[in-house]
């Protein structure tokens, strides 16, 4: 029996699902039409016309999917699983955008959106390349749309639709009620870690990078397909550089987000998800260099094509790694499987098959030279550099793919215990070789170079680099490891050699500027990453106490987390730090930590406050975000590892005033006596025989006596008069007095006529539970070199794009 559900908005979902089907269908139509447009040649425009219309239709459909999904999330239509799972009512609009791509479906949508945009740019700009290139792009578009289908075909669900209803996605008894929607008050909300402005711009940049990787792939296939083996290497250059630039920017943004918003304590962790995105980036950079070599010398055609093709296949492999759930036990931030494991595998295989098929088909016609390269030629070293980059990638892939091998061969190999050391061990030597080549290859000419001239010109740079290395290594203290010194040298050599080139570029050879700037940025990035990674120091080392850490005596490891009480300064490294207070803004609690540096005379020479925050999320527990003080030459990074539970937890009903006080002390006193308590003393000033008690009328036989007391605290004197009451024929009672300023409660409890003494009971307040935090602080020296290097490198790519674009127009 069908239940009539109340309050559902089914239209946006149905419309969205229609757009998904439309985008899938139109992508296939466009791909097929472009295929026939390609093989029918330039004489017949009818296929191309259909293909263009299909492509535009596809773009419209993709935009339509986005609009429907946005409408659903924006209006909090929690009858849809996606809105329920990834957003909540309290979410500000700009984070609604991030919740858009928190889930896999949204990030697939983002990818198809960019790919659609690129397809339109290609229709506009690609001219004679339009048909073959767009055939491939639209095949990829069809594959991506199929990931969103969420339709059952032959009993298996293909893809995962963002428009699936909550009641279809999840089985629960409440969905048997027609009014189930009224029971669902709010969505699950966005993962607090993603509630960061970098998360609004990092994913779109990254996915534009991934999406643009299809274009070089499509050009390479188009070149093979239409036998324009040489021509494709020209128009592909700006596209390949664009992909490299955008993907590089996206990766660095992710790295910056991790550094600023996550408590990983670093900017690169060799996490499988990070590796997955950097591998295609490196292979495409290698491809760009070999393409240049081929363009100028006719050498290495196969390598250039192969690297261009494999880069996109590796993008798909990366999406398989991060989305299929296969990384489960090795990565903290991969997506979980949405039942698309095989779908993703097929995606990788289809494009790998396209690449292999075209290469095999045209194998005999490929313009492969039989000539040998000259050793003193630029193309030779471009080729070698690209190969070294590729081997570096092979290392990253093979380590990252351990779970894949486990799944394929049923083995149970665990990833390296210390991933950072494992990767660095390999990547540092590769980086040294690549940096050196990127320096001296600039002094070589294409075809051949006079070797003596070459050596004379590099010797100056080598010497300058050696001297600077000495200085830099001394300042940055990276002399612990000879490999680090070599890497510093290689990076500096690359900077100097390319700086020389930049000097010439400024004199008029502007064409060289892009490559010079990009390589300078690369050199800086290497040195920055090396120094920051090799010399960063945890300064919150807990070695103050005489008690070694239980159970760790043998290893003598000191902990990296420091416990501090509020307002109790602690000496940490050169800083004196104090936990001052905390403020709560919305769901976040910001803890104010004051850092001071005292000079020899005891004066404060440096002072700043950091506000690391925690969010006590009812669903995810405590989420910490660091705060960092940025200096030009170093950063002080601080994050909270733990915090005292918030107040009010002990506040349950049925407790008495007495519970707030320690056990009382009882004193027998007389006028003029002094009673000491923990932080002060009390003087018995006298007896008030006419004590009045509010609301109690006294008869003649009643005795009400007040004890006049003066409480002396370090902060001042307070008077108090507890009263002893003896009503005729009743048990005596007393009325105590609280002196809140002193944290005391005073009672006059007995009069002993025989001894002529009075009894005074002193209650002291329990010390309030002191607030505490546990924090970890790290100093990152010279990390700005890393960021600056990244930015300079991106600028270099941009300059190169302009140059190659201009070459296209003049050609």
């Amino acid at each position, binding site marked *: 029996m069908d239940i009539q559900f109340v309050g559902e908005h089914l239209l946006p979902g149905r419309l969205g699902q229609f757009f998904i089907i439309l985008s899938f269908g139109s992508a296939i139509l466009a791909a097929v039409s472009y295929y026939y447009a390609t093989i029918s040649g330039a004489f017949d425009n009818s296929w191309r016309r259909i293909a263009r219309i299909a492509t535009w239709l596809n773009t419209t459909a993709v935009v339509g999917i986005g609009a429907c999904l946005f409408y659903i999330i924006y209006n909090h239509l929690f009858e849809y*699983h996606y809105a329920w*799972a990834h957003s909540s009512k309290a979410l500000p609009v700009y984070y609604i955008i991030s919740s858009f791509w928190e889930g896999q479906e949204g990030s697939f949508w983002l990818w198809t959106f960019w790919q659609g945009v690129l397809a339109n740019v290609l229709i506009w700009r690609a001219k004679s390349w339009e048909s073959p290139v767009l055939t491939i792009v639209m095949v990829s578009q069809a594959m991506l749309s199929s990931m969103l289908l969420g339709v059952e075909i032959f009993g298996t669900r293909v893809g995962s639709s963002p428009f699936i209803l*909550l009641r279809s*996605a*999840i089985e629960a008894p*409440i969905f048997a009620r027609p009014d189930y929607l*009224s*029971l*669902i*008050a709010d969505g*699950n909300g966005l*993962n607090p870690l993603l509630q960061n402005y970098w998360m609004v711009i990092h994913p779109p940049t990254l996915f534009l990078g991934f999406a643009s990787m299809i274009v070089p792939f499509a050009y390479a296939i188009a070149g093979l397909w239409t036998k324009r083996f040489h021509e494709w290497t020209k128009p592909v250059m700006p596209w390949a550089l664009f992909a490299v630039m955008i993907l590089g920017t996206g990766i660095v943004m992710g790295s910056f987000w991790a550094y600023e918003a996550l408590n990983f304590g670093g900017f690169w962790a060799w996490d499988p998800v990070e590796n997955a995105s950097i591998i295609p980036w490196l292979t495409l950079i290698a491809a760009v260099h070999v393409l240049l070599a081929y363009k100028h010398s006719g*050498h*290495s055609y196969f390598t250039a094509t192969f690297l261009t093709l494999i880069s996109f296949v590796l993008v798909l492999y990366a999406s398989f790694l991060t989305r299929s759930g296969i990384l*489960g*036990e090795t990565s903290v931030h991969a997506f*979980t499987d949405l039942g698309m494991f095989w779908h993703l595998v097929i995606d990788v295989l289809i494009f790998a098959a396209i690449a292999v098929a075209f290469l095999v088909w045209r194998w005999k016609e490929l313009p492969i030279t039989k000539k*040998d*390269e000259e*050793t003193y030629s630029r193309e*030779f070293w471009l*080729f*070698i550099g690209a*190969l*070294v980059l*590729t*081997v570096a990638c*092979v*290392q990253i892939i*093979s*380590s990252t793919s*351990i779970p894949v091998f486990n799944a394929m061969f049923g083995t*149970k*190999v*665990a*990833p*390296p*215990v210390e991933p950072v050391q*494992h990767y660095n061990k*390999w990547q540092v030597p590769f980086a040294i070789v690549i940096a050196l080549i990127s320096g001296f290859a600039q002094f070589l000419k294409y075809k051949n170079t006079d070797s003596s001239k070459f050596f004379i010109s590099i010797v100056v740079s080598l010497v300058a680099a050696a001297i600077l290395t000495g200085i830099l290594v001394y300042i940055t203290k990276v002399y612990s490891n000879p490999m680090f010194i070599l890497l510093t040298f290689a990076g500096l050599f690359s900077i100097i050699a390319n700086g020389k080139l930049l000097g010439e570029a400024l004199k008029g050879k502007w064409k060289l500027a892009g490559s010079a700037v990009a390589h300078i940025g690369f050199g800086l990035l290497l040195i920055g990453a090396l120094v920051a990674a090799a010399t960063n120091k945890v300064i919150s080392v*807990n070695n103050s106490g005489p008690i070694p*850490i*239980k*159970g*760790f005596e*043998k*290893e003598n490891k000191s*902990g*990296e*987390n*420091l*416990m501090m009480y509020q307002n109790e300064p602690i000496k940490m490294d050169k800083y004196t730090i104090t936990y001052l207070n905390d403020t709560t803004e919305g769901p976040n609690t910001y803890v104010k930590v004051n850092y001071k540096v005292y000079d020899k005379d005891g004066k404060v020479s440096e002072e700043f406050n950091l506000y690391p925050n925690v969010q006590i999320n009812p*669903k*995810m*527990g*405590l989420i910490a975000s660091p705060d960092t003080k940025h200096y030009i030459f170093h950063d002080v990074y601080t994050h909270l*590892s*733990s915090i005292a539970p918030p107040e009010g937890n002990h506040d349950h009903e049925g407790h008495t005033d007495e519970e707030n006080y320690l056990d009382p002390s009882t004193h027998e006193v007389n006028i003029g006596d002094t009673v000491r308590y923990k932080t002060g003393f009390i003087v018995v000033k006298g007896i008030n025989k006419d004590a009045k008690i509010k609301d109690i009328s006294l008869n003649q036989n009643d005795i009400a006596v007040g004890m006049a007391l003066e409480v002396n605290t370090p902060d001042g004197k307070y008077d108090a008069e507890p009263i002893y009451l003896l009503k005729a024929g009743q048990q005596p009672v007393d009325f105590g007095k609280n002196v809140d300023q002193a944290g005391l409660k005073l009672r006059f409890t007995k009069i002993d006529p025989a001894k002529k003494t009075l009894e005074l009971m002193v209650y002291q307040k329990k010390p309030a539970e002191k607030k*505490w935090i*546990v924090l970890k602080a790290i100093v990152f020296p010279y990390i700005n070199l890393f960021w600056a290097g990244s930015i300079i490198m991106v600028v270099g790519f941009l300059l190169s794009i302009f140059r190659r674009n201009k070459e296209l127009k003049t050609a």
Partner: protein
Amino acid sequence: MKKSSIIGIIIIAIAIGVIISTYADSSTYANFSEAVKTQSELHVVGNLNKQKEMVYNPQEDANYFAFYMKDKSGVECKVVFNGTKPQDFEKSEQIVLTGKMQGDEFHASKILMKCPSKYNKDQVEVSAHTAQPSKI
């Protein structure tokens, strides 16, 4: 032979070396009884024993966290971690430890845990604000 072919061969040789070394560096998944027999660091997968106590007193020592874990073969062992207690540790479904045995205790250098957090598991939460029958 062409120079580039020779270099190609060298590169392939290095690549093979790299892959082999990856496996030399790699670790193994084991259980506690296997961990007792070796001094090398390895990975142990298991579940937190929620019945037994977890010790984390930052006031005493902010870098000492101890708990009991049952590995996949059901063997239980005390685990000591030189650091703070990971947030939401109680809710963890599965734990992957990296470390080695020291006497009777397993000393973990890294803890990776999987939580059944709402971000990867679907559980409809019915709000407490159920519709109140209106009073007439």
